[in-house]
């Protein structure tokens, strides 16, 4: 029964245009997650990430993304970052990867994770370069970062693979890190 003064509804229909494609979990012994064989049947993609690194340090490191195994300098980056005290922005051209999120390092308080929502629009186009957008951050009750991130991949190839990684050969995603890839139909 609706609460007095409130019009309530529940058990609404599902949004069938938003589908889960795949989920990956950190192993504690790898700093790389790959979503491969991505179908071109959607209009847009979204990655929702919950990430922490085994790196014995405080603060955060960047969540890095490459497309279709491309490690050449075909990417660019712009970001707007707030640290709780001030705002900064920077851009980089001709990069070999994209910075699209925050990964909390392991000397931060336990159970604090970096989170990211990465949107990839028109990923299957064969006539356009590809634009990425991310809202990401972490908070540790007195420290943290708020990240608004944009990147581009300069290729007209359809995206069929996404590689997510962190820098450092011995830095790994913790076992409570999760990465979910979704497809959004047009």
């Amino acid at each position, binding site marked *: 029964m609706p609460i007095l*003064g*409130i*019009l*309530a*509804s*529940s058990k*609404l*229909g*599902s*949004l*069938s*245009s*938003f*589908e*889960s*494609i*795949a*989920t990956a979990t950190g192993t504690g012994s790898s700093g790389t997650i790959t979503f491969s064989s991505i179908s071109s049947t959607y209009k847009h993609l979204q990655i*929702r990430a*919950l990430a922490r690194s085994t790196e014995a340090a405080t603060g955060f490191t960047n969540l890095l993304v490459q497309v279709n195994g491309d490690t050449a300098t075909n990417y660019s980056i712009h970001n*707007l*970052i*707030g*640290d*709780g*005290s*001030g*705002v900064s922005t920077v851009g980089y051209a001709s990069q070999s990867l994209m910075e699209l999120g925050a990964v909390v390092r392991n000397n931060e*308080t336990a*159970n*604090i*994770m970096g*989170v990211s*929502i990465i949107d990839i629009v028109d990923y299957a186009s064969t006539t356009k370069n590809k634009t990425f957008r991310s*809202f*990401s*951050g*972490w*908070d*540790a*009750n*007195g*420290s*943290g*970062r*708020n990240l*608004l991130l944009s990147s581009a991949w300069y290729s007209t190839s359809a995206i069929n693979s996404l590689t997510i990684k962190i820098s450092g050969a011995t830095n790994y995603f913790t076992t*409570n890190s*999760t990465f*979910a890839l*979704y497809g959004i139909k047009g």
Partner: protein
Amino acid sequence: MASTYEPIATTTLGSATAAITFSSIPSTYTDLKIIIVATASVSGSALQFIFNNDSASNYSVTLINGNGVNASSNKYSNQSTGYGLVASSSTGLSTSVPSFLSIDIFSYAGSTFKTALVAGNADKNGSGNVEYDVNLWRSTSAINRIDLSAQSANLSAGTTATLYGIKAA
């Protein structure tokens, strides 16, 4: 392939009310998302939320905002609620122009502390605010209840909030 983005409940206020409550939230999803279109009885009120009826000082937030003049970043520790549109009293909810907020709550039923990303937009034809908040709730409990409210005010009639569940494969 099964749909994984489902509305759980929607509430639209028929009269001014202190809070919108989503309770008995099932733990069957991966993330939660709330879409809110809100006005308040007091201009400039922040949008607040608490989880599982916890009003102790277990919340904190790091935010970035632009108010049409300046961009800034602030942080608030040991808060008794989570926040959206909190940057300043002049840039919060309006009494007449609906503000639009989305709250993404990650791994709400998981065993880590809970982080919520809030995107808030308030424009009042000459003043306003675009604000992005990273909220932390320092609890490992699964979230089964969410209360939305306006700071020191009521949410006005017509305010609407929809809770969605997002399920990963």
